[in-house]
């Protein structure tokens, strides 16, 4: 083969891979280009680009076409683990999703699924490319189908690194985790202009679909980073907890923390007075492997704290109540947050540890009319469905339905532990007495009588021994042994295998 052919190829490739136009646009805005983002995230020299010569077919846009059609796709490694990745290039037609653009993305998604490798999307797009019409939309449909077919087979991660509007948001919405960057990312279906035309409402990009709206209000975003590079760093950290696919166990990293470390500090973190609140983060930090906690959804439904951590090197998913927010009670948003996280852990063989201190469900017509019944049921469904090891530790309160959802062995928890301070009952003392002793109190309305009945109830019911007698709690432990015991339980359960009856899929309340 003559050297001319090679020269021609090298020239064409130089044009195709030319990042100059992207750099001019993005750097002006203080942002990275798609190629720079991939370069930063992946191991050096590991990236192999696919379809760099793909071009749009639409004759109307013939003059504007560019190689690559506005998205960089391919595969490489992150910390030596193979991953598939795509990054949209906002400098080409606003990163809009044309037919070939979408085909490129679905190509690597198909490969990721076939090879069982995580798939990462770096989004930066104004939405569908209007001129390409149905061709673009239909090709987008293939992306959504692949997101769905891959769901629960390979981890799928999306980072919103710019605008993400219209159909562009649906692929991230189908993935396992969405990252946003403060003041850089926006996500919405209909933008401010359309909203103003139809309903007259005036609102800016940031308030409508910026990181604050999605991390705290909608719960669409799971993580907020301060910068693009921090976002990409966080993706690397997250991947460190996840297996390549659902047929593998999560990666084990030997802990820099002894398995026999006592946790006496827990006695003072959790106040003796059950009416006083505390920060569950302190309990998590003291118990799990040092500095191993990676919180998920930190600013959404803060009355519940969930995230990934390690116990003696093994990855676990933590679900816990946060007593200092909304008294640690459950509500609609926290039901969604828990269920989503539990089901993710179950997909990828991550054992779950519950730290329970819950007073009940948030009362109010707002909760009732917005469906706390069906949202709360999601928690029951997710835990019952899960076949990963499930360990529950009751720190203080565990009342009523919340007890069943987070602790019940009959509902599927493998181990139910409790501290001596545990209060496990259908409901609290005052409420219970007002119902059980209604007649007595109606006949003789005395504060002293009520007080003595309440004390009696507390002594009889509000302790872990009633539950332990029935086998509902199988082990009562001292707070200082929490870490030691959790590690023993976890390591004993790692080989757990559980079957479920074969079915197409269940009908989880949604």
């Amino acid at each position, binding site marked *: 083969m003559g050297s001319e052919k090679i020269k021609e190829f090298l020239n064409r490739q130089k044009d195709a891979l030319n990042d100059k136009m992207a750099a001019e646009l993005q750097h002006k805005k203080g942002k990275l280009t798609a190629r720079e983002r991939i370069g930063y995230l992946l191991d050096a020299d590991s990236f192999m680009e696919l379809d760099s010569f793909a071009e749009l077919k639409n004759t109307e846009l013939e003059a504007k076409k560019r190689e690559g059609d506005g998205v960089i796709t391919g595969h490489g490694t992150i910390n030596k683990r193979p991953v598939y990745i795509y990054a949209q290039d906002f400098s080409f037609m606003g990163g809009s999703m044309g037919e070939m653009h979408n085909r490129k993305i679905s190509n690597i998604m198909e490969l990721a699924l076939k090879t069982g490798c995580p798939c990462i999307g770096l989004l930066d797009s104004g939405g569908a490319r209007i001129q390409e019409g149905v061709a673009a939309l239909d090709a987008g449909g293939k992306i959504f189908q692949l997101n769905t077919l891959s769901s629960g087979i390979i981890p799928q991660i999306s980072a919103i690194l710019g605008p993400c509007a219209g159909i562009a948001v649906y692929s991230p919405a189908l993935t396992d985790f969405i990252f946003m960057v403060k003041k850089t990312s926006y996500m919405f279906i209909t933008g401010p202009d359309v909203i103003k035309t139809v309903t*007259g409402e005036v609102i800016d990009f940031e308030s409508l679909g910026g990181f604050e709206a999605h991390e705290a209000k909608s719960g669409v975003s799971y993580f907020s980073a301060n910068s693009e590079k921090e976002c990409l760093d966080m993706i690397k950290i997250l991947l460190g907890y996840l297996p390549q696919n659902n047929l593998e166990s999560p990666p084990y990293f030997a802990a820099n923390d002894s398995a026999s470390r006592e946790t006496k500090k827990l006695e003072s973190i959790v106040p003796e007075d059950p009416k006083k609140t505390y920060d569950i983060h302190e309990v998590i930090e003291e118990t799990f492997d040092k500095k191993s906690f990676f919180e998920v959804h930190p600013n959404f439904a803060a009355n519940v704290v969930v995230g990934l951590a390690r116990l003696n090197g093994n990855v676990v998913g933590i679900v816990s109540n946060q007593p200092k927010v909304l008294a640690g009670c459950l509500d609609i948003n926290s039901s969604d947050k828990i269920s989503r996280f539990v089901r993710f852990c179950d997909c990828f063989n991550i054992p779950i540890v519950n730290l329970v201190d819950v007073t009940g469900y948030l009362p109010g017509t707002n909760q009732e009319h917005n469906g706390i019944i069906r949202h709360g049921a999601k928690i029951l469904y997710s835990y019952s469905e899960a076949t990963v090891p499930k360990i529950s530790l009751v720190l203080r309160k565990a009342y009523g339905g919340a007890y069943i959802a987070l602790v019940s062995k009959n509902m599927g928890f493998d181990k139910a532990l409790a501290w001596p301070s545990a209060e496990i009952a259908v409901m609290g003392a005052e409420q219970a007495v007002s119902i059980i002793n209604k007649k007595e109190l109606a006949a003789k309305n005395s504060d002293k009588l009520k007080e003595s009945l309440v004390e009696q109830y507390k002594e009889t019911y509000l302790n872990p021994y009633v539950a332990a007698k029935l086998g509902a709690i199988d082990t009562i432990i001292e707070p200082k042994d929490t870490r030691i015991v959790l590690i023993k339980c976890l390591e004993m359960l790692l080989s757990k295998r559980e079957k479920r009856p074969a079915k197409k899929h269940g009908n989880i309340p949604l």
Partner: protein
Amino acid sequence: MEELVVKVDGKEYKVFVEETEDGRVLVHCGSDVYEVETKKDAEPTAIQRLHSQQSAAFDKFEVVAPLPGLIYDIKAKEGSSVKQGQSLFILMAMKMENDITSPKDGILKEIKVKKNNNVNRGDVLAIIE
């Protein structure tokens, strides 16, 4: 037609106000049209600023009850300066003493509740300036 920005239930809308030949007043909002009654010589009422957690432009900030309960204790004095995260109230709810903290640094301009008041979720407890 006059263009106005109006606030209804905390949301802003750009509207066009039209006075028809037969003296009716129509308000065009997006694709909807509403007929409204107008008051002449009405007393100007103080416009209450609704707080927005993202907007630093508003200098009044309302501290609201996150859940229904009883004001168990008031931890700061009216007129004193407070720091973000400082405990302002203890709200007894769900059998727990819940810490209601200040969302930002400022002056505790007004305390709107008394000890042993029952409050609902969303009730304004204090104003920080």
